[in-house]
């Protein structure tokens, strides 16, 4: 019934559905717009960038280009991943720049009817609240939608780097 409905919605207004990439951190599922995602890579150790904040793992070589890799767990104030080798890097784009976001795993691509997205209640600290762009129920689980431009905030990284 539910799927029936959402299909109808999709037919009614094509633009109201957006594809999201679903990734996991711990037991939670997070979503980022698929349009911003370039590729998914297995974990490769990054080269440390002196002075960068702890959530910047470093830089890696993406086919001849140097990109930064950020750690989603550190960004969200969570403990480091239990098994680093099992993690993956989601390569995404924000404001014309490419970067990698290290997450526990990637599971799915889902259609998210934008009309069903709810603004997030104030659950997180002020620092992390800004990463949330909304919540949506997809099938059985709650998908936490993430605002990538808040995660890859170069102005903040640069500020923290010069303060160090």
């Amino acid at each position, binding site marked *: 019934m539910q799927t029936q409905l959402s299909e109808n919605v999709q037919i009614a207004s094509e633009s109201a559905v957006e594809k999201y990439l679903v990734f996991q951190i711990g037991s939670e599922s997070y979503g980022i717009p698929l349009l911003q995602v370039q590729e998914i890579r297995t974990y490769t150790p990054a*080269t*440390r960038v002196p002075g960068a904040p702890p959530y910047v793992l470093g830089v890696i070589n993406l086919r001849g280009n140097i990109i930064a890799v950020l750690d989603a767990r550190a960004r969200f104030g969570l403990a480091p991943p239990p098994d680093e080798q099992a993690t993956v890097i989601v390569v995404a784009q924000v404001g014309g720049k490419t970067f990698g976001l290290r997450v526990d795993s990637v599971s799915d691509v889902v259609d998210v009817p934008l009309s069903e997205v709810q603004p997030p209640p104030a659950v997180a600290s002020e620092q992390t609240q800004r990463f949330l762009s909304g919540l949506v129920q997809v099938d059985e689980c709650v998908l936490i939608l993430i605002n990538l431009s808040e995660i890859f905030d170069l102005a903040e990284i640069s500020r923290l780097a010069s303060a160090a």
Partner: protein
Amino acid sequence: MENLVHLFYDEAYEMLEGMEQVLLSLEERGHDPETVNALFRYAHSFKGNSAAMGFTQLSRFTHGLESAMESLRREGRPLTPELATLLLQAVDLIRALLERTRTEGDVGDPACDLLLSQIQAVLSGAPTPHDSNTLPPSFAQSETSAERAARRYRVVYHPAPTLSPEHDPLALLRELEEYAQFIHCRFHHQIPPLNALKPDACYGHWELTVETAFEPAILRAVLELSAEGATVQIEEESAPSPTSLSAPDRSQTASDSDQGAPVRTVQAVSAPVKSESQSIRVATEKVDALFNLVSEIVIAQSMLSSAQAETTHERLRYAITQMERHVRELHERVMAIRLLPIGHLFNRFPRMVRDTAHQLGKKVNLIIEGEETELDRTLLELLSDPLTHLVRNAIDHGIEPPEERRACGKPETGTLLLRAAQSEGRIYIEVSDDGRGIDPERIRQKAIQLGWLSENEQPSLETLYDFIFRPGFSTAQQVSDLSGRGVGMEVVKRNVEQLGGAVSIYSAIGQGTRFTLKVPLTLAIMDGLGLRVDEEQYIVPLTAVLEAFRLSDLSRSAPFERGEIVNVRGRFIPLIRLRHIIGLPDKGESELVLILEQEGQQIALAVDSIVGQQQVVLKSLEENFLRVPGFAGATILGDGRVALILDVAELFRLTQHREPISRSAA
């Protein structure tokens, strides 16, 4: 490797075809230096390629051919039908051998030497074989020149002055032993004292007495193999049996060689196009695309080179060494395509100077020097703004109005000099004027006014000059339309430093000011020295490195516990530790110290260890991330990992604003 082999054969066949066509056209049209050169080019490249593949027999034969043909080039000898036939046979022989290398590896054939001696004989004008259709004997034919009497030669062999894995005189001499019996061998050397010894230089020569039935040209060919610059003198000592020297008296009528048709049909060969124009126009995107590709090749090559250590496969190692050289040259050549004379940029200034001077009521004579100095196109573009700014500044602030100049006893017309020159792998660009110069006191007052200095501070001249480049600094009395908004000089410095360059000022009150921009020749690829700190590698530009010491060998001091100083041969040099820069604690005394130099100043940089020298492709960190303070960019190492490249200019700045040593782990 598979592709490499493929490429080798493709190219080899092309070259053979080329040689054939050139020979045919030479025979038909007579001597023509350009065509003869083409023949040599083919033979030479073929020789190099087959040597790189480890096919020494092939490459030796080609080399022999090359030497034998030398008189064609040097003396402009016409290609007689007889000679043409022999040379074409040589091409056939090479082709057949080439086919055999696919399955048998490095094969040779006695027929090669025989053919060479025939060619040599024809060229030296000796009696020619009666049967001009003489074919090389079958490949299975093993008796070579046994019938010919052995003769004794005195051979003086000077190897090329520089040794390399491809050019090992001892290996060549061992090769020679297969061709000649050594009667006597003397090594003359002049080895300098150890401290002046260059490890890759050859300090001696050999004097040999040998007996052989082979032609001297073959001995020469062996010793000259893959060595430019080696000299070989061969003299016959006695001539016991000069009778049957020229050619074997066998007349072979049939050949096992599938290619050995005795009569060649000379086909009409399309004439080599001679009307080449001096230059062609190429879209810059094409050159850039080529250049990017070459950059990728340099990275791939460095991966190959680092893998080289892991293999014991001789031919592979050899090919990689060879490739490395070619890649380096390829890179240099492609770089050269991108170079443009700085005149392209300078040429816009006469007009600008005229207009600016007119607008300000000043008289300025612009002198341009060194406009033929070449530099990378991208550099040229990036230098445009800084230079424009400096030129405007010079007219606006530097050169005085005519009446003021007259009052000072100077000619009314000021001189503005724009000069470019290349030196030590860098480009120097000077913008100088004979204007009023920079008054340090005025800078000081301005700095105090801006709160950068306290009332009674008397900083050094350099520090004062540095203020000029700070954002917000402008000493212009009024903000003019042209300059003096205090943004320009900051941009000049930043732009130039982004290019890995530096700006320096020289000024004398009343006499003028000179700005010197020092920029690298190229942006994208440089020689770097790999440094290791813990598990990570960093790169420092090789041009900045003077020498290295063990830290424990140098005496140190830390005045007021603010920054260390080391004593290097009686000179006290500020020491900074790479570990501090990247926020790691010290590691005891096992560190090395590199002495870096920039603009005559030196600093010591402590590192854990040195990895080695390598060519690195400079990659931007800003393109997808941020500028990282202290680093000029990053590069991709042979194993695909990223290494950060240290910004030497910034290291020098670090030592000038030193903080207490305790600030180690950030």
